[in-house]
């Protein structure tokens, strides 16, 4: 890729990043416009952490992107309608929901049993790691506020690092608020005040979705040579911290953990990358994807938005610290994924049951009960 094209794509990425932040701001402003009764009705059910987890899974499965769902959650927290304590289980759910993309991608290998088994194991190892992390950390969060306590402490440090203007607030926040104010003024002049909240909410969501899609597209084009080098490096050097960091950097670069993990699935399926070597890259992707929520928190008014974004990062890092350093624990998600894949090869209907059960029926049932 020429320097001119790279520069143009990076320029476009910055523009879409601005649109992304404006989208978060629009969503935040839109939801604030709803009355407190309506807001309570919508978000009352997710006060239950299990329901919040289910909502996070379902929302992410529906939009097929944890970046979109976590940015939306950050926007909601930023508007003040969603307390960060309720949002933390939702971002944990987003982590689980995002893995459906991989599992669906692995179905492309169904024609050849050996390929399919390896592909499904690569996809479901991500599911199992996230499920196990939630199984350990959600009870600790409910009982002791473990994740939120760490996130509050870290957010305090991060907040000090963000550009602030003493009297007028953040220049970034002012810059992203400007187009939202323009839309608000336009709606007022058109006399559509009653629909302002819904229009801004929809606009915010569309902007978040489209801008993230365009950022991913552009950055993938810019970064593909580097990603190839990184993957070839991982193939050459094997698993380890280097692979984990490569997973973080790749995902930060393309702003999508699904892109990173979906690259791994065909490589594991073809047998050139082992499950053990792909695992740290997947964990790195989990950490890398939290950058989107951190970016979204830049546009949000409430400091709680930063707390939930940092909680997303904290949750993923704690998950790695629990399961990765200890070989016995590290093997658990890999072993569960291998068993699932072996069983799925014998009975392919199990895959449909697994996907529908985990990603649709479970969250729907929990939400209905809540």
């Amino acid at each position, binding site marked *: 890729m020429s320097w001119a094209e790279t520069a143009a794509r990076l320029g476009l990425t910055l523009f879409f990043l601005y649109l992304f932040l404006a989208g978060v701001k629009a969503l935040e402003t839109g939801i604030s416009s709803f009355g407190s009764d309506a807001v309570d009705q919508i978000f009352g059910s997710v006060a239950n952490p299990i329901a919040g987890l289910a909502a996070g899974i379902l929302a992410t499965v529906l939009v097929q992107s944890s970046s979109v769902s976590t940015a939306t959650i950050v926007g909601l927290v930023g508007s003040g309608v969603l307390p960060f304590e309720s949002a933390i289980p939702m971002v944990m759910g987003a982590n689980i929901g995002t893995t459906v993309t991989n599992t669906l991608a692995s179905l492309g290998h169904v024609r050849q049993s050996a390929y399919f088994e390896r592909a499904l194991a690569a996809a479901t190892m991500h599911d199992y790691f996230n499920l196990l992390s939630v199984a350990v950390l959600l009870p600790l969060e409910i009982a002791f506020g473990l994740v939120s306590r760490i996130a509050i402490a870290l957010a305090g440090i991060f907040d000090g690092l963000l550009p602030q203007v003493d009297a007028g607030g953040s220049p970034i926040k002012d810059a992203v608020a400007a187009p939202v104010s323009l839309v608000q003024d336009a709606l007022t002049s058109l006399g559509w005040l009653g629909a302002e909240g819904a229009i801004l909410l929809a606009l915010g969501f569309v902007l978040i979705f489209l801008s993230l899609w365009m950022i991913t597209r552009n950055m993938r084009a810019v970064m*593909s*040579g*580097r*990603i*190839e*080098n*990184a*993957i*070839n*490096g*991982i*193939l050459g050097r094997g698993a380890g911290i*280097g692979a984990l*960091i*490569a997973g973080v*950097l790749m995902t930060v670069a393309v702003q999508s953990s699904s892109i990173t993990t979906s*690259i791994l699935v*065909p*490589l594991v399926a*073809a047998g*050139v990358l082992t499950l053990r070597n792909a695992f740290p890259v997947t964990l790195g992707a989990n950490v890398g994807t939290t950058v989107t929520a951190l970016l979204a928190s830049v546009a949000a008014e409430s400091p709680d938005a930063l707390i939930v974004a940092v909680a997303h990062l904290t949750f993923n890092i704690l998950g790695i610290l629990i399961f990765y350093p200890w070989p016995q624990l590290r093997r658990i998600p890999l072993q569960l994924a291998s068993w699932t894949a072996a069983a799925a090869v014998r009975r392919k209907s199990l895959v449909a049951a697994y996907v529908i059960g985990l990603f649709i029926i479970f969250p729907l049932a929990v939400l209905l009960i809540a």
Partner: protein
Amino acid sequence: MFSIFRDSDQLENVEQQLAGMLAQCQDAYRIATAAVFGESDPTSSGDELLDLDREINRTERAIRRELLVHGTVRGAELDLGLMLTYMSVAKDIERIGDKCKDIWELTGMGANFSVGDDLEELTEHRAHVAQLITWTLDAFTTEDAEKVHELISTIRDDAAHYDTHVLHFVQSEMPSRHAAPRALFYRYIKRLSLHLSNILSSVVMPVDRLDFYRREKAIDAEADQ
């Protein structure tokens, strides 16, 4: 560690590795023929040859992995034709390495071409094939279509000539310890040359006609570009 995030054109890397493999085949051919022409000790040259062959095989596997990564990251539709071509070229180069090993193994049959009336002719063929490998490497890396057509035509003529030699030794009254290694040598350099022809065809032929060279098809493909 961050050097892995250096940007580079991976297909260009693959091309360089293919050229490197072919250069290793030049060495392998030199070592194998030196042994069979009684110019070196077969045992020590055998170790050197096996190391080279292992290196060629390793590079072939690395190329396969890199092409798979390239297709997965970039989307295979972009360079699919080129990727399939490089897979095919890597296989042909790896086979040339095998043929060099086959030539060296003739020493195990007691072959020593330095002893015999046909030394001059064998030496001439040996040098010609060495030259073909060099020319192929050059034409492949420079993508010189005219040179490619010329070389493929030469190799086809050579192949027919080598077949005549094989037949001659198979039907000769010569003791089999002389005739068999010679028949096999001509057979191996014929196969080796045809692998070179396959490599050359990748420069001018469409993917579906790789290894099935026909000059008019190649020219049609060039005209369509």
